[in-house]
């Protein structure tokens, strides 16, 4: 994609764990809230306060390790990463450098390259470690002051570091989506990029095609969406190539991506980087993970998307593409599976979810988890179509939209809106005859062999019946009347 150069990309992905409480204290781990309401002396780093490691955070980090094929280390340590910044109240972050919880994983996935070819791929994970998030600085919101909100301070984070195994924006984004899906299926995080619970830093370098030596890399921060990752990679690769073509050299530096401007800006060079003076945190004992604990956690790991996809293809005989969508998100797959408990029409459940529900969700900019009706409701809707109570187009539009609007169960909506299909031949015959009488020109065209005019006539019937007419019956009637 970049003439004359190969791109090398590695990711550092930060993911906030969805534990009940923060990683070193009992404060609630919750997004948002009035500033500084989810804080205590421990997460504020007050004098004399000590961290106590949250076991659930360790377990979720280990689950993330299992979900990405990592080995779990028997002994892990927490280390201090020292740096001064006002939103870091201890002036160090408790993290893991020397002995992380998880090492050496692998994720397999497929992606479509920039020429439209489907590719099988894999990316190795170097490590996953546990650490704490910092607070937030809000600059210039109040005169010339900076304000601090420590609600996020001490929220458990995992950092997933990949090997530099990626070579294109397409591949990187597909890997990132696969990773995100796995983390979500493992139940360790909601992975909401817009709320910052999933963030990625991109390390990127370029080298002449065929060269064995990696070029100097830059690190890009502040990538808040998959689209931003994609655009940032394209832009940075191009920038580096331009620098090289002008005979300049690439400087190892950290750059900040500005998604609005569509370009990255230099933050600091390697020389300006902090020496974090890592050392083992003497306030926390080493974490010993024995086989029993590992096994227990391994057993509790939910099915991963790849396994689920295979199961859907084998057991439900659904197309690969459909299965891919159904297993892209744990909320979707669990909705799908739950709906199957209430109807036998697997194909229809799949279609309703991946086509109609996802359309409405996309149009209304909501999340799948925001869907307010139950999988049983969807199953009921499908059963009502299958038994001829309503027609499919009414189901997919009027009824489904009403369900999204929280207007109740499908049968209640059909009842209150009077959407029950008209299948009575005598009633429909009257309407068909009316339509024939009112539309002499199209009728004439039909009689002259323009078969497709039947669609227009059907539309007129639907208009008169508010879409309730049973289409098969109407067509039969037209055929009979127009012979």
């Amino acid at each position, binding site marked *: 994609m970049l003439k004359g150069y190969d791109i090398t990309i590695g990711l550092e992905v930060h993911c906030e764990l969805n534990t009940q409480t923060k990683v070193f204290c009992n404060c609630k781990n919750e997004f948002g809230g009035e500033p500084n309401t989810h804080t205590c*002396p421990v997460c*504020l*780093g*007050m*004098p*004399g*306060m*000590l*961290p*106590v*490691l949250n076991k659930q955070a360790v377990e979720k980090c280990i689950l993330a390790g299992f979900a990405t094929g990592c080995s779990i280390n028997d002994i892990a340590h927490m280390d*201090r990463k*020292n740096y*001064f910044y*006002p939103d870091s*109240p*201890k*002036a*160090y972050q408790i993290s893991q450098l020397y002995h992380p919880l998880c090492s050496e994983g692998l994720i397999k996935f497929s992606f479509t390259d920039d020429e439209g070819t489907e590719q099988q791929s894999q990316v190795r994970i170097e490590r996953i470690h546990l650490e704490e998030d910092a607070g937030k600085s809000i600059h210039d919101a109040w005169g010339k002051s900076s304000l*601090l909100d420590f609600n996020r301070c001490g929220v458990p984070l995992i950092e997933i570091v990949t090997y530099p195994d990626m070579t294109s924006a397409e591949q990187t984004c597909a890997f990132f989506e696969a990773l995100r899906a796995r983390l979500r299926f493992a139940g360790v995080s909601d992975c909401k990029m817009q709320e910052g619970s999933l963030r990625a830093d991109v390390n990127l370098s370029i080298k002449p095609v065929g060269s064995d030596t990696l070029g100097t890399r830059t690190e890009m921060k502040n990538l808040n969406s998959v689209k931003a990752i994609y655009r940032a990679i394209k832009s940075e690769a191009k920038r580096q190539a331009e620098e090289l073509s002008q005979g300049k050299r690439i400087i190892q530096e950290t750059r900040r991506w500005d998604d609005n401007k569509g370009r990255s800006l230099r933050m600091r060079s390697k020389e300006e980087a902090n*020496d974090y*003076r*890592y*050392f083992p945190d*003497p*306030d*926390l*004992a080493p974490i010993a993970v024995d086989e029993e604990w590992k096994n227990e956690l391994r057993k509790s790991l939910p099915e991963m998307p790849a396994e689920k996809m295979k199961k859907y293809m084998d057991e439900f005989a659904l197309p690969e593409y459909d299965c891919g969508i159904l297993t892209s998100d744990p909320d979707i797959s669990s909705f799908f599976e739950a709906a199957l408990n209430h109807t036998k029409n697997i194909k229809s459940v799949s279609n309703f979810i991946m086509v109609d529900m996802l359309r409405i969700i996309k149009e209304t900019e909501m999340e799948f988890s925001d869907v307010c009706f139950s999988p049983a409701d969807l199953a009921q809707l499908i059963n009502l179509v299958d038994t001829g109570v309503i027609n499919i187009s009414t189901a997919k539009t009027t009824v489904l939209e009403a369900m999204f609007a929280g207007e109740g169960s499908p049968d209640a909506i059909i009842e209150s809106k009077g959407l029950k299909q008209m299948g009575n031949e005598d009633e429909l015959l009257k309407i068909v005859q009316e339509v024939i009488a009112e539309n002499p020109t199209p009728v004439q065209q039909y009689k002259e062999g323009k078969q497709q005019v039947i669609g227009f006539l059907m539309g007129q019937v639907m208009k008169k019946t508010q879409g309730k007419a049973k289409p098969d019956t109407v067509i039969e009637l037209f055929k009979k009347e127009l012979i």
Partner: protein
Amino acid sequence: MNILGLSAIEIAEKIAAKELTAVEVTRAYLDVISQTDDAINAWLYVDDAYALNNAEKVQKEIDSLLSQGKKLPALAGVPVGIKDNMCVNSVKTTCASKILYNFVPPYDATAIKNAQKNLMVILGKTNMDEFAMGSSTEHSAFKQTKNPWNTRCVPGGSSGGSAAAVAALQAPLALGSDTGGSIRQPAAFCGVTGLKPTYGTVSRYGLVAFASSLDQIGPFAKDAAGCAALFDAIKGHDEKDSTSYKMEYESSYEEIDNFKKPTIGILTEYMGEGVTNDIKQAVIDAKAKYESLGCDVIEISIPVLTLALPAYYILSSAEASSNLSRFDGVRYGYRSEGADDLQDLYIRSRSEGFGTEVKRRIMLGTFTLCSGYYDEYYNKALKARSLVVKGYEDAFSKVDILLCPATPTTAFKIGEKTDDAMSMYLADLCTVSVNIAGLPAISFPGGFDESGLPIGLQLIGSKFSESLLLSTVNAFQNETNYHKACPAEKGGAK
């Protein structure tokens, strides 16, 4: 009744017998403080109304327990002084540093909570070397505590205020913290008894950290029995401190008279160059005393102990450089006015807020943790640490207890070592290895030097052997009167 002539245990017994009240006792000590502290400067913060109010509450509880025929905690109603690096809810906690000059914590340290649960009365906060860094209490940002035996001399440090307060009969008991000798060395200089417990037996929650892997809170008293009872009151597992031991804690006070005639090893490493002859003689006298009490005493050597002092200064400074980073002028404590930007705010607040010794340690610790030096210093010090641990383990396979001086010299003159950090650091020669190994050790009066200053002896035990240490010192104190001597009688401060 002469309250000041009583030991902490005797006070508690008289309160339990309704011969005294917590209020009377508290008032008596507050009176001494107000009469003598202009000369001693042991206290940073004493609020008579606060202490008396607490004493009244405590006395009410005591009355209620007694009326129900219930047994009182061993030190119910006894006042205690608190080193100013332990947080007491709503009471100023400064660590004797300008950078925390106005800091009032909204929480209690666990040791304080435990003392209060045991119906003890908090008298006030005692002076110390800033952030517990020092051996003379000369590094307090606020005042110079004097040695009650000779006010031209230092009381030792860093818990100099606590040791001086007990020596000057301003408090029957006090809490200190010991990172490299900060309880034992001032106890020795002031002629009182001080226990540095096994690392992890007293919670560090609410103790403002100096060096987290070495810090340990411990008691001061005139005698071993008082130390035992106070240690009992504050120790125990604490879920808020991940380095706190989860186990059954026996009462050391109940074991105080159970003298086990331990085999004692005289630690030759601390009997050599740099240790004064008076002190060496006191060790030899103690050896004779223990032999007469039926103990076997042998000489023992742990050559790796020479690694302890350099390892200590690397590890403690490294941890301190990180622990003290939070004092940045942003959220609480001292903030320099007129900073231009964030970097300037940090630099000014910390430059103006910290004293020289603290800055020296922060710089030393920052240096040793820098990339490129980490392996050379920090990792090497960790290796030395494990050798010291092993050295002590070997020694304790041969003897039950080690005997040595608590300090190489008796109290030195104020100002004598302030310009020579290295010679000040040597004051911790006999004590730091104990912290490096996480062991318990006790410093107790073992005589006087030719100028009449107290000599401190030290017993070191294996992990969790506090009861053995305390009963062994108690046996010595049953046979000697050094611990009963008062500076006033000896012509010290009046």
